[in-house]
């Protein structure tokens, strides 16, 4: 059947309109309380506040349920605890988010009154002083030296890893966070936990 000459320009017009629509509208800045569920949306494959809350919840729930925490609660000894940076072994630049996570851990443990937490800020100053002699930043291999200076009985540390994969139209980043509580005198692992979550860029 021959196509009407009117149809072809109509199809052309539709195509032009479609292409013009793809230009879209401009962005608008908003506050979290202006848009319901704003914090729920994933906007990148990095770590955001919601991920931090999930990690914090999982890890601290596990720590508080551990035998060592129960022993502290029972004997009321309030040992000194140092908190060291979590090592970023991921494919995302999340160092500042991990720092925020540690500050949240510090706040929680200080409020729980089970341990005496060395101030993260004071600890960083001390690390900087030690590392002046070594010519660098925080070095996990110098933890024993830091602990001597801080008088810590336990220290909390950890690592974050990712399994990062990409296909033609998707990218998936699976995070695995391991946190450990180490007894300084014996280097024994007093508690360990793994928390995991996934972020991805997918085709809808």
């Amino acid at each position: 059947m021959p196509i009407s000459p009117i149809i072809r320009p109509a199809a052309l017009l539709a195509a032009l309109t479609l292409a013009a629509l793809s230009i879209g509208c401009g962005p608008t800045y908003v506050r979290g309380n202006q848009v319901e569920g704003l914090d729920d949306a994933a906007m990148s494959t990095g770590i955001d506040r919601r991920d931090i809350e999930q990690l914090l919840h999982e890890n601290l729930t596990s720590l508080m349920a551990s035998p060592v925490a129960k022993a502290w609660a029972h004997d009321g000894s309030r040992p000194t605890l140092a908190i060291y940076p979590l090592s970023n072994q991921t494919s995302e630049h999340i160092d500042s988010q991990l720092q925020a996570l540690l500050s949240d851990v510090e706040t929680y443990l200080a409020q729980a009154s089970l341990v005496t937490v060395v101030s993260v800020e004071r600890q960083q100053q001390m690390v900087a002083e030690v590392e002046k002699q070594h010519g660098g930043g925080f070095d996990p291999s110098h933890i024993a030296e830091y602990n001597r200076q801080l008088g810590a009985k336990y220290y909390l540390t950890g690592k974050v890893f990712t399994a990062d994969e990409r296909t033609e139209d998707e990218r998936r980043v699976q995070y695995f966070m391991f946190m450990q509580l180490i007894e300084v005198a014996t280097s024994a692992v007093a508690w360990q936990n793994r928390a995991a979550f996934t972020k991805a860029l997918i085709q809808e």
Partner: protein
Amino acid sequence: MRRRHAGLAGRKRAALAPLALLLGLWQAACGGHEDRVRTALQALDRGAPAEAVAALNEQLEVETAAQLPALRGDNALLLLDRGNILLSMDSYRLSARDLGAADKSIDLLDMSRGAAHDLGKYLFSDDVGPYKAPAYEKLLINTINMMNYLAQRDLSGARVEARRLAVMQRYLRDHEGETALLGLGSYLAGLAFEKSSQTDEALLHYDDALRHGSYPSLRRPLRALTRGEPRSPRIAALIEGEAPPPPLDETGEAELIVVVGFGRVPQKVPQRLPIGLALTLVANDLSPTDRARASELAAKGLVTWVNYPTLARGKGGYSIPTLKLDGRSQPMEQALDVEAQVRAAWKKNEGTVILSAITRTLARIAAGEAAQGATEAAAEDSGPLGLLVGLLTSATLTALDTPDTRGWSTLPARIAIARTRVRAGTHDVVVGVRGESRRARVSVAAGGWAFVPVMVLR
């Protein structure tokens, strides 16, 4: 009579609607990507990187380089350019931020091309729709950003870039073969892990680098790192013949790594090619029907040219950088010929680009004929109106057809590297390339290291 006139006027208005829409789009149309970066590149040619950044800021609609623009349209590409220029100005922190933001945005663009974009590409222009970065650009984002982190001695940041690079390398190896896997990225990834005391990972990356280049500057560091026990045949072949040197902290020495990026890769520029020549170039790829149609239109004089992008001359392809350390000349080796990567990628796609330009030209003529037919059918006494609508439709689509000249315009044409042991203390580094002399003073502790990136983008 009045009613008939009113009816005719209505039909003419209806016929003119597509014309009005096309004219509106014509007005909205702008030049190709080369127009957006022209001022910045001219400033780089004059050796004025700050002016180049200001020109890009204007395009990005921000006031200073401290601001990140909205990542819409092709802003991610301009951000790559700005990041590269900021690196050349030793603004490593801002450069790392720009390249990092662009990296994520390019990922997003890469995965967002849809049917509407393909339709626009078919009807209007190659540069309709999101930019799809070629493989070498994706790999160089992480490679160059590693330089920013190494220059700041931020090994954690450098390792993140190294891991991002490895993900992309793995993807490209699985999907596009080995051609785009650049050795320099693996070299720098090896360096990041070596200086983080993660020897196993460092050796994996160094081994990968040696798949793509000989890198004599790695010989001594690898002898020291492996202590004479190579983990792979490639590393064994490189380090054989001499005993491993003592570790840096035993000798009280330090290591200095200087990376020099110079010149600029060839930019994509629009080119008008006679239709006859274009048809010859893609004779084997064009369908017989399209070839016959194109030849017929060419014979009628309706199609004389096709618009398509081509590569201009690069800058700096034959330059040789010099390096003086405390006044003494040091050898530099070629780490990467970026221009060769750009030309190879272009050669691979050139036929498709020309073919697409010819197909689009045929579509434009067809659209013009359709519009003319529709106008004549709608307005019986349209007179020359039908022809005018047809010609304007075709002409408007021609005007909208901007060849896709998008690309990372400020990539250096070549990158050279020097790696040497120095005594602990302060050293003067002088790099001479492309008529410029860059100086840096670095202090290194015993057993330490310093990374000095130098970009001369002219």
